[in-house]
């Protein structure tokens, strides 16, 4: 019995260390890869606790290895958008301007009930009030209401002439120009180069550049 107690204690400390090594992201919303690691770690940890015939190393080695693989994979996905897309997937728009994209819903195996539930959770009971609904990689639905239905804020009153209904698009993501976003916003390379020249920065040195249809942009330079 004492052996089981001591093994449980060792593995408890190890799992705590592992979760800390995985980082703070783990505690909040889980990405698919993090969910897999969490399930695997919890399963592996129980085996050497229950079965004292198994050396404790058969629990420790896979737990540490999995967590290290996850940390390395996180670093790789941070550098490569392609790998990030493969590992975590990408967000999908399921409602645009009050219209449900049924094909996207079908591809995501997302039912109307799921969508309506997610909207209701955010206080929206009519799908026509929605400007954008996006299924994030974590499975959570992010919703942007049409301007007419948004709560009144000082910003809205001061910019009441602003025609833009759509949320800003990311144009430069960690030094990489997203051409598709430029096309969506009806902007071109000339406009982008103008912004970069005005801020005396090259595209590769930009951490984030986002803009809306009214060409209101936000630029954050890389610090590291």
């Amino acid at each position, binding site marked *: 019995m004492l052996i089981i107690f001591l093994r449980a204690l060792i593995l408890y400390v190890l799992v705590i260390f592992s979760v800390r090594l995985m980082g703070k992201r783990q505690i909040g919303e889980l990405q698919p890869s993090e969910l897999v690691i969490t399930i695997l770690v919890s399963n592996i940890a129980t085996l050497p606790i229950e079965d*004292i015939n198994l*050396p404790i190393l058969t629990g420790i080695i896979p737990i540490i290895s999995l967590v290290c693989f996850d940390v390395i994979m996180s*670093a790789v996905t941070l550098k490569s958008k392609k790998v990030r897309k493969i590992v975590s997937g990408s967000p999908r728009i399921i409602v645009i301007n009050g219209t449900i994209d049924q094909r996207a819903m079908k591809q995501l195996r997302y039912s109307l009930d799921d969508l309506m539930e997610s909207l209701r959770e955010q206080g929206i009971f009519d799908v026509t009030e929605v400007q954008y609904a996006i299924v994030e990689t974590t499975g959570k639905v992010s919703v942007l209401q049409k301007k007419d239905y948004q709560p009144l804020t000082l910003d809205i009153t001061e910019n009441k002439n602003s025609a833009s209904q759509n949320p800003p698009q990311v144009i430069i993501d960690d030094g990489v120009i997203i051409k598709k976003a430029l096309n969506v916003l009806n902007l071109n390379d000339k406009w982008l180069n103008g912004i970069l020249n005005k801020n005396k920065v090259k595209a590769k040195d930009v951490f984030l550049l986002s803009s809306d249809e009214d060409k209101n942009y936000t630029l954050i330079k890389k610090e590291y």
Partner: protein
Amino acid sequence: MKRLIISVLILATIVVTSIVTLSVFDSKNEQLISYIERTEELYKQNKTDLAEEELTRLNRFWSDYYNLVSYIVQSTKLEEVAQSVSKLKALMGKDEFLSECESIKYGIRLIYDSEFPYLHSIL
């Protein structure tokens, strides 16, 4: 970045330790087999006293070997071999002695093979 370096270092440590452990395991296996073979040899030459001395050395070596190997091998697999080793002294002078020696040699080779990363063991 710090986490990445720690992770890479941990993984490298695991790989190196695994390889070192496997080679130590292999050399200890060879030592154990040579003890058994010497005992068998002396027993076949009817040098019972010398065979008994060798057997005592074998038992002493076995307890060290058991403690070391139990860190990586499932204890039920080791228990079977341990039982055979403990029987040897009692079997001296009987027909089963040599067959028990063979079964110990086979058992420890089997344990080593189960730890070695052959393709069939991985898959």
